[in-house]
């Protein structure tokens, strides 16, 4: 064996127009090592990994694997040279079997025909070799999210890669599956492969990796052996401010904010009784949930995605039909009302997936900010808009929420993720309604926007609103909520006051390992 490193990244720079996403990054990884890459959203981690995996073309610089240079921007060549990436978003074909997905692109053939039997055999072989059990003939759409990720990993391993890249692999997993995955990663490294992974969870970075690199604004600003660093130090490197400020931003003071028990004991603002929701396939995705949220209180719903939380929120918002049960807001039964009626005086909604549900990306910031207010008499003269009043209103929100835009008519899609989310939070939290539904409010936003948004949610509760929050970020739930409910298979498996429920029990409940 020669002594060239398993992977060498040499002076890689990626420019998108005037934006430098990755700025002259060089690093090297040995065989048998787990290398973690951390950094804020938008620091360029995913872009750098995409360059290594041949998905994105670098503007300058080169990648070499075991001393041999890799062609630029060629995924297939990268796979053949032994570099594969498990992406953050699933890249599976839902209607196809596990085996068909794994061999896609290098299907076994008999003559010109697809040899499905051999594909299944190959996959069964891979599965036992890496101790990642999976049924090769299962249809991917039917698999839970954890198994889907296993398929993704096997798909990459089927190319016999030496360099395995994982982009936030544990983000969607419950705690026990996440730790199992970390074991698998260590196992891969022990076999002499190189594991590169991106994570936001500094605890898991510290527990699994040998070395860590910190990216900030596209630059590799720090690199060290894991034993020589600490979580606070990594955090401060990530955002480039001193560690104390980092602590405040990161909410490391989890639970420290003294919270009164139930701020507005008495009549709940939101009362959900025996709610059942059936999904498209006729499956009960919400299966008899009772939940109250009082005025002045933030209730967080946590759970592994796909356990009915999203459907539950949509049912309360009126977007999804209810199979049975009752939803009342402020003492009024709203079960029979449509979205428009519920939004008139009952609720506001910061939906999951802001670009899909929350905003019209090609329309202006102004158009996005006035949505829901546009029929109010103060903005009209007869049937016509009072354009100046609307602009003044939008300008007010821009100022109050520190939305960074060049002008009001700038398409909102041109803003950063954090600013788009600030705009949506600004709009929805300005409605004069007793209940605010909030789903995944800080997913993919930078730390500063996260701080603004968290502050705003606390303010809403302090002002006497009831806030129902769905989040897959347990730290966020613990930092914000007065009460927590853990969803598992459409039911609340565990519920109670946040300060009384331990993190461990929540973790167990998320994976269904806890009886009620």
């Amino acid at each position, binding site marked *: 064996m020669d002594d060239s490193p398993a992977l060498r990244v040499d002076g890689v720079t990626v420019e998108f127009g005037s934006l430098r996403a990755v700025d002259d990054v060089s690093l090297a990884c040995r065989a048998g090592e787990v290398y973690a890459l951390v950094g804020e959203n938008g620091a360029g981690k995913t872009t750098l990994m995409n360059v290594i995996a*041949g*998905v994105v073309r670098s503007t300058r610089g080169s990648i070499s694997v075991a001393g041999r240079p890799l062609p630029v921007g*060629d*995924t*297939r*060549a*990268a*796979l053949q040279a032994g570099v594969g*990436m498990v*992406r953050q*978003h*699933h*890249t*599976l*074909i*839902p*209607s*196809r079997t596990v085996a*068909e*997905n794994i061999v*896609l*692109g*290098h*299907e076994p*053939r008999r003559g*010109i*025909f*697809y040899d499905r039997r051999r594909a299944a055999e190959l996959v069964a072989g891979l599965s036992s070799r890496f101790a990642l059990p999976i049924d090769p003939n299962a249809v991917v759409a039917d698999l839970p999210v954890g198994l889907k990720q296993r398929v993704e990993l096997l*798909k990459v391993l089927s190319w016999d890669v030496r360099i395995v890249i994982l982009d936030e692999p544990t983000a969607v997993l419950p705690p026990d599956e996440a730790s199992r995955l970390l074991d698998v990663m260590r196992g891969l490294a022990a076999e002499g492969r190189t594991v590169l992974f991106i994570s936001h969870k500094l605890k898991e970075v510290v527990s699994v990796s040998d070395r860590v690199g910190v990216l900030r604004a596209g630059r590799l600003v720090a690199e060290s052996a894991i034993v020589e660093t600490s979580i606070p130090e990594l955090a401060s490197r990530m955002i480039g401010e001193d560690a104390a400020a980092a602590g405040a931003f990161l909410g490391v003071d989890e639970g420290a904010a003294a919270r009164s028990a139930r701020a507005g004991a008495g009549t709940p603002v939101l009362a959900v009784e025996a709610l059942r929701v059936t999904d*498209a*396939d006729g499956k009960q995705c919400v299966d008899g949930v009772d939940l109250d949220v009082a005025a002045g209180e933030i209730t967080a719903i946590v759970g592994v995605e796909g356990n009915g939380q999203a459907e539950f929120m949509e049912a309360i918002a009126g*977007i*999804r*039909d209810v199979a049975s049960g009752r939803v009342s807001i402020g003492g009024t039964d709203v079960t029979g009302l449509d979205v428009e009626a519920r939004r008139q005086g009952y609720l506001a909604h910061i939906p999951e997936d802001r670009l899909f549900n929350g905003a019209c990306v090609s329309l202006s910031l102004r158009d996005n900010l006035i949505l829901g207010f546009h029929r109010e008499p103060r903005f009209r003269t007869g049937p016509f808009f009072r354009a100046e009043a609307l602009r003044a209103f939008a300008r007010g929100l821009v100022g109050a929420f520190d939305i960074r835009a060049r002008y009001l008519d700038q398409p909102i899609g041109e803003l950063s993720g954090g600013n788009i989310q600030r705009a949506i939070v600004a709009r929805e939290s300005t409605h004069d309604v007793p209940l605010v539904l909030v789903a995944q409010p800080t997913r993919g936003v930078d730390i500063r926007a996260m701080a603004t948004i968290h502050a705003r949610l606390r303010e809403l509760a302090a002002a006497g609103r009831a806030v129902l929050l769905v989040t897959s970020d347990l730290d966020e739930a613990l930092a914000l909520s007065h009460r927590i409910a853990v969803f598992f298979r459409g039911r609340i498996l565990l519920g109670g006051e946040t300060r009384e429920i331990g993190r461990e029990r929540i973790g167990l409940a998320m994976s269904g390992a806890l009886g009620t």
Partner: protein
Amino acid sequence: MLDAFLSWTMVETGIRFATPILLAALGGYLCQRAGVFNIGLEGTMLSGAFAAVAASFATHSWALGILGGVLGGVFAAAIFALFVVSLRTDEIVTGLTVNILAVGMTTYLLRAVFGVQGRFASDQIVMVPPLGLPLDWIPGIGSFLSSTSILVYLALVAAIVINVYMRYLPGGVRLQAVGEAPAALAASGLPIARTKWLAILVSGGLCGLAGTYLTIGELGQYVDNVTAGRGYIAIAAFVFGGRGVGGVVLAAFLFGLVDSLAIRTQGLGLPSNLAFTLPYIAAIAAITVVGARSRRVSRA
């Protein structure tokens, strides 16, 4: 009375009407699988129909006529693919434009090349002969099978080939992945745009055959706007047919039968223009059924 409806003649007419619909629907099906909703089938067919007549007239060869028809369709499809895949224009806008442009081009060329308006007939146009299979002995439909056009059989062969490709070849799985989960292809380093191009060009060839059948397979002449909305019916057929080629074949045959029923009812005294609304009404009904079915499955 009932006899009149349930005769072999009606099935035969049904097959004849179904042929161009099937060919175009197969093309639309391929595009849809590859994630492109091609509403330019109508114009692509028209382009093929014109090119087939021109080629047959110029070369006095039905085989070259077919080739011309295919190339005419591929030409129109290439324009569609260039814009939709390579320039990323909106597929609906582009499809409509291909249809409108095809009408304009063919009426213009009819005047410019043949100096006629409305229709072009000539004894120099060589029609596609029957395949002449020795099937006369089959009762009922035998004489039809032996005397029907090569293109009818070609349509069947196309359906079978596409079915085999989609089910039993790796390329079929990849093609469907383009429509269903393009990220999966990208992750395995497989080309997406090239696959879409391929699907659209093949659909162009199939639409070209459909146009060829209408002109040098059936009429023996070119008539302005000879496709008369069959490309749109083909859309209804592949949408109605669902995920499998078998369904597309069945749907196309059903639409052919409705067409043939329209002819029949005419014989029974229903005014012809009113009868000819039947296939379009059937298409509306089919799309409505498909929509209602999909709503039940994917109601969010």
